[in-house]
Structure formats: structure tokens, C-alpha cells
């Protein structure tokens, strides 16, 4: 008779999974803990509880400006990356354009190519052709790295969609553009929406491009936190970080609802 998995291994497995969860989530919990401290220093466990550091950031012009810049940027990136990414996904899915596979590969390149190389390239190219970096530079950079996510989620949905519906639409008299807007896009909506939330999250959290292209005009929230970490960490960083974690959790839950987190992983 074959024995099941030995009890000792099962026991070990539970302890191991618990340790992994602690390792992955622990640092985030610590950040949230620090943010509620009543003391003046970054310590964990926190000294007492208060919301004073939240009060400090919502009344600090530096943090408010940074949050506003990040939000503005993330919304712009969401729009541009979603429109371009969805359009590219439709074209890649149809495989009618010669070289579609190559084009598809090129668009996924920003995922695997070290962001630092792209960031340096964009900084140098922008500085030599147009001068000082601005919100526009960062908008373009974030759009390039967010597009692959929109393409992937949209393609995943298109792969399971019924390709004859578009033909049916055409046969029933819809023009090629009409067929795209009324048949293909609604079919792909779920993937496009999930991609849009990804794009927002990527832009809002991104720090590498933002650091390279940094200028006083584009002090985003991650850069504000980074700068303070380098010089004088105080619990206000923890409060800002906790709000960012909260936003990420909300994004993950929305993406899971829209699209299924299982498919993101696949």
C-alpha cells in the first residue's frame, strides 16, 4: 500500500508556508505598523498609537504635491497605455500584418530588457534632443513599460473570444472600424480593463525611470519617499507608504475581480 505524504512533511509544509508568508508580507506589515506610531522615530513595534503622521502628510505641501504629480501621471499613463496596448493586442491577435510575431516580441521587450538601460537611454536621448526632462518624458517612459501588461491581458481575453463574431458583424453590414468598436472591443473589455489597472499601478509605483528622469517638476510619490529614505527617514514615510500599499491591495482585488489573478500569473 502506498502511504500518503508523511505527517512530518505535512507539518514541515505548514510551517514553511507560514514562514514564506511572513517573509513576503512582514515588511509591509512593519511599514503599516510604523505609520501609526505616536513617537518621533521610525521604530517597530511602534511607540503608542496615533494618526499624527497621517495628519503630517495630508498637511504637508511636499507630500500633497508629490501625490498629485503621481496621480496625474498615472491617469495619463493609464489612458495612453490602454489605448495603444489594446490596439496593438487586436492587431497582434489577428496576425494579418506581416511580421506580427516580431512586432509582438518588440512590444514585450520592455518587460525583459533591464529598465535601467531604457531609463538611461531615454534620459540621454531626451536631454540631447529636447533638453530638460518634464512630465511628458516620464509619461512617455511609463507608457512604454506599461503597454506590455495591457497587451498581455488583452491578448489573453482575445485568445478565448469567438473570432467569428467579427465576421458575423461584417456580414451583417458593419464597416471594419464599426466591427472593431462594436464587436471586438466589447469582447476584449475585461482584459483591457485589467490592463488599465495594471498600467495605473505600474506608473504610480514606478521608481527607476522616475529617478533617472528626476527633475523638480516631476517629484513623484516614490521619488519623494526615496529621497527621504536616503537622508532623513521619519514615520511620515511610513504613512505615505501605507497609503500606497493600500492602493496596491485595492488594485489587486479589482484585477482579480475583473480578470482573475490566476490568469495574471499564467
Amino acid at each position: 500500500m502506498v502511504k500518503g505524504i508523511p505527517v512530518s512533511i505535512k507539518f514541515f509544509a505548514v510551517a514553511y508556508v507560514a514562514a514564506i508568508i511572513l517573509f513576503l508580507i512582514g515588511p509591509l506589515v512593519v511599514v503599516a505598523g510604523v505609520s501609526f506610531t505616536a513617537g518621533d522615530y521610525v521604530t517597530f513595534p511602534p511607540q503608542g498609537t496615533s494618526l499624527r503622521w497621517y495628519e503630517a502628510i495630508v498637511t504637508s505641501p511636499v507630500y500633497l504635491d508629490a501625490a498629485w504629480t503621481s496621480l496625474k501621471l498615472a491617469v495619463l499613463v493609464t489612458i495612453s497605455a490602454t489605448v495603444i496596448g489594446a490596439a496593438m493586442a487586436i492587431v497582434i491577435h489577428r496576425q494579418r500584418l506581416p511580421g506580427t510575431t516580431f512586432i509582438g516580441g518588440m512590444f514585450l521587450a520592455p518587460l525583459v530588457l533591464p529598465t535601467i538601460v531604457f531609463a538611461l537611454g531615454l534620459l540621454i536621448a531626451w536631454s540631447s534632443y529636447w533638453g530638460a526632462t518634464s512630465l511628458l518624458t516620464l509619461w512617455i517612459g511609463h507608457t512604454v513599460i506599461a503597454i506590455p501588461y495591457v497587451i498581455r491581458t488583452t491578448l489573453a481575453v482575445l485568445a478565448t473570444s469567438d473570432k467569428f463574431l467579427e465576421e458575423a458583424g461584417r456580414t451583417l453590414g458593419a464597416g471594419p472600424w464599426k466591427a472593431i468598436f462594436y464587436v471586438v472591443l466589447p469582447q476584449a473589455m475585461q482584459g483591457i480593463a485589467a490592463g488599465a489597472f495594471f498600467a495605473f499601478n505600474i506608473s504610480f509605483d514606478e521608481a527607476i525611470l522616475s529617478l533617472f528622469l528626476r527633475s523638480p517638476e516631476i517629484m513623484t510619490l516614490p521619488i519623494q519617499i526615496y529621497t527621504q529614505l536616503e537622508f532623513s527617514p521619519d514615520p511620515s514615510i511610513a504613512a505615505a507608504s501605507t497609503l500606497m500599499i493600500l492602493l496596491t491591495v485595492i488594485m489587486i482585488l479589482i484585477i482579480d475581480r475583473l480578470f482573475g489573478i490566476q490568469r495574471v500569473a499564467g
Partner: protein
Amino acid sequence: MHSIKLDLSIAAPGILLLLIAFVLPVTGILVLGIENAEGSFTSAHLVKFLTDPFYLAIAWRTVKLSLIITAICFIAGFPLAYIMARGGPKLRLWLLIVITLPLMTSVVVRTFGWMVILGRGGLVPQALNMLGLVNRNFTLMQTETAIVVGMVQVLFPFMVLSILGVVTKIDRRLEEAARVMGCSFIQAMRSVVLPLAMPGVVAGSLLVFTLSASYFITPTLLGGTRLPVLASSIYETATKTLDWHFAAAQSIVLLIGVLALLVPYTRLSGKANG
């Protein structure tokens, strides 16, 4: 013919953006790294990197840390991927959320958490102090250990997801057959599951290695300026000394290393998904 025109007009804005904002800047780096101030070819920047002991030490540290990080991600990630693949759908969903959360959190936020935990008076130094292993002022900050710990948290999900994709496709009956024929659980793991999961393991390792070689925020914040890795050296050169030629040359070194590993990666992950 008509439909090709339509597709082309849908794709045109995206292709244009990619060419101008991605292909052009990256190509620019490749040129700049092998060019002197007058614009003619020189290998001086590359030679400087490859002969100066200071930069060689940086390259070695980058490779060494990336190897350690990859090994830890594999050892810790493989069992988790297996548990996720064989566990119930509910467990899998929750574990996926747990791995996705650090993946999607901003790198500065994650790293800040480790600074609190590993720094002076943090949880880990305090625990070590209570065990009597270190004195009160002990800190793990500015050490290679801190870099490894912080990076493993970031890159762990990539390894788990790569292995998970392959393990879910392994026929359970193969394991059962091995057990029926007398293998213990561990033996079945080692001689059936692990070999079959190899494409996922190798793909995950290549991905983790290349990513860990190209991150610079976590190493800079946790390791400090005394422990530079290749990516942080690129950042320093580009923003502090403003030597763009040399920053580009270092990027070329990074790029060549990464591409050498990514070519087998795309082959493997194509196979694993196909």
C-alpha cells in the same frame, strides 16, 4: 489588402511610439558606449570597465549576489510552487495574492520595510541581540546580506510563478506511479517532479538572475554606497559624475550579460507554455 491597411493604421501610433521612445534610446546607448567625444569608435570605455579592479569588483559582486539570490529563490520557491500546484483552488488563490502583493508594491515601500527590520534596533538585530549573538548596536544595513534579503523578496514571485506554470502541467499519475513502485515522497519529488519541472526551474532562474543583476534601488538603499553593484554604478555614473559615455558602456556590459541569458530563457518559456 484592405484589412492590412486597417491593421496598419490601428498599429501605427504604437509602433511609432516604440521606435522613437524605446528602440531609438536603447540603440543610442549602444552607440554612445563605444564612441568618444568626437563621435568616432573607441573601446576605451569598455576597456576601462574591464581592466579597472574597482569596476571588476563591482561586476563580481553583481554576479555573486545574483547567483546567491537565484539559488535562494529556487530552494525556497520550489516547494511553494509544488504546494500551490497540488493544493486546493482556495489555497492557490490566497497564496497567489500573497506573492502578487510584494510584486506590485512600489520598490521603495518594500525596501523601506526591510530598512526598519534590518536596521539598528530593528526586529532582526534585536532578536540576535537577545540570543546573545551580537551587541546592541548591531545592524544588518549596509551589508550584502541585507541586499540579498531585500532582493529575494522582490524576485521570489518570478521564480514561483515560473515553476508553478510547469508543475501544474505535470501528470499527477506519474507521481502516483512512482509512489506505487516504492518511492518515498521525497524520492518521488527528486526523481519525478524535479526533473519534469526543470524547464520551469531553469526559466525562473534565468529570469531571477537577469532581474537581480539589473535592479539598483534595493541594493543602493540596503547596501549603501560602499557596496555598489553594476546597476547602481550605472546610476551613479549617469547622475553624479555625468559621464554618459561610461554609463552607456556599463549598460552595454549589463545588456550583453542579460541577453546571453535571455535567449535561452525565451526558448524555454516558449516551450513551457507551448
